[in-house]
């Protein structure tokens, strides 16, 4: 089972990398992304980029954007390109196909985000280190890794469920884009509240135990990951995928 998952993962990653970075435009888009979140934003944030625990929220949120495009394509795209039926006619189990695709997308998103984190660290050290080595505090580093994995897992499992149900890759991508709005609800929603309430929320956040909030949020996302993955596994039926 593990070797089958790895086989599917390997193929998926190869396709993502071939299409994403194979062309000159693809390489350029990677450079832009790494430039913005690896150089520009850390440079603007200064030492806070390394020291503030709030940066963890960004790491949990960012993978969604790098997952959305590829995950939409995972099943709907294969069906459109007529490669899915051949894959389904092979000896691979349902779980190996599904988990291989899911883990490939998570690996891609996490790899990209962790690369940004490392480049960001170098940027902050170059600009603001003043001779001392600045590092993410261990708790922040661990939280960052966990947040990225959970965030990419949530996006990937939701995306796979959408891709399994979508008629076309474009339809799946559109649904994934709609979900991005949900990510902005807490930010814009807070700004719509009366100033008094906003002040209360800020005060509560300042006084709150961020570690506890992080754990609670992580737990909720973990449960959601599990529920979405179980739904995707239940939805994965060879006959249905061929006939839909």
């Amino acid at each position, binding site marked *: 089972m593990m070797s089958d998952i790895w086989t599917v993962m390997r193929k998926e990653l190869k*396709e993502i990398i*071939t299409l994403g970075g194979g062309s000159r435009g693809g390489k350029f888009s990677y450079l832009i992304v790494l430039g913005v979140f690896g150089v520009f934003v850390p440079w603007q944030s200064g030492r806070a980029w390394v020291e503030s625990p709030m940066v963890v929220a960004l790491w949990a949120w960012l993978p969604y954007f790098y997952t959305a495009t590829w995950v939409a394509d995972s099943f709907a795209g294969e069906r459109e390109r*007529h*490669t899915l039926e*051949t894959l389904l*006619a*092979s*000896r691979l189990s349902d779980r190996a196909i599904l988990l291989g695709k899911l883990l490939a997308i998570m690996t891609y998103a996490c790899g990209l985000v962790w690369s940004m984190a490392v480049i960001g660290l170098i940027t902050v050290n170059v600009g603001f280190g003043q001779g001392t080595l600045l590092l993410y505090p261990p708790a922040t580093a661990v939280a960052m890794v966990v947040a990225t994995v959970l965030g990419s897992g949530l996006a990937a499992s939701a995306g796979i469920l959408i891709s399994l149900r979508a008629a076309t890759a474009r339809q799946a991508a559109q649904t994934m884009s709609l979900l991005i709005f949900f990510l902005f609800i807490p930010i814009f929603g807070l700004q719509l509240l009366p100033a008094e309430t906003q002040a209360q929320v800020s005060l509560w956040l300042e006084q709150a135990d961020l570690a506890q909030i992080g754990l609670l949020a992580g737990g909720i996302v973990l449960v959601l990951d599990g529920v979405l993955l179980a739904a995707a596994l239940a939805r994965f039926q060879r*006959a249905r995928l*061929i006939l839909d």
Partner: protein
Amino acid sequence: MTDIAIHTENLTRDFKTVRAVDALTLAVPAGIVFGFLGPNGSGKTTTIRLLLGLLEPTTGQAVVLGHDTRTHADAVRAQAGALLEHHGLYERLSAEDNLEFYGRVWRLPGPERAARIKELLTQTGLWDRRRETVGGWSRGMKQKLAVARTLLHRPPLVFLDEPTAGLDPVAAAELREQLAALAAREGVTVFLTTHNLTEAEKLCARVAVIRQGRLLAVGHPDELRRGRGRPQAEVIGRNFSEAALAALRARPEVAGLEVKDGGLAIDLQAEAEMAPLVSVLVQHGVQVEEVRKGKASLEDVFLTLMEEEQK
């Protein structure tokens, strides 16, 4: 492996109100190329999907390589190879990467995988282009690569769903030759669906004809020709008088005749001698220039079966 590679018993599949496969009972001996013929929409692809366990039958049973497709579909798919309606190649990847992926899927060990990929790509004439992405290839090249992928893990049974459909005649003939050579060399059972009757005649040791999901006939192409298609003869000449035609119609070996394009087409009852019939024509003043005698083709058999079914 059993002597029968595929056995179906009243295999039936309904899609809402449409019966795609209707009580199909079939036995495919191991080690032969078996042609599954039928017009478009006759249930050929659905049958392959049922045999691979990708769809469940509504009723009936299929046993493939000794495994019931309803309960042991995984075991069937673990042993069989399939080139389905579409070639199913990853067009963003190279030819080598495509085979590498499926080699890993079939768990071929590293050195064996590399050797097998080289062997198949060399046999199909694609070795020099192995690093090119498949997306830019012609349909013929893609089909060859897809055939190579199907045979990669040396399956005892392969399903080929209209492998030459959409190819130009040269590419189709080339692929047909390679298919025949590969199948003979690998010694596999080939379940070939096609509506190209020349292809079936050239490749298949046994054929089955279906229409609207129902099996109309099954047997060796020669058996079907003997059983269904009538031998024919064509006489080219002049002065086909009514008297000459009447004299010919009276002969027991003549089933029917028709004057067309300056010639006379004769449907014979069985493998009849032509000399007595030519004598009759000459006696009645017909000037005979040429006599051609031909066997009924599989196409004639197929068309006869379709006509009978429609009636």
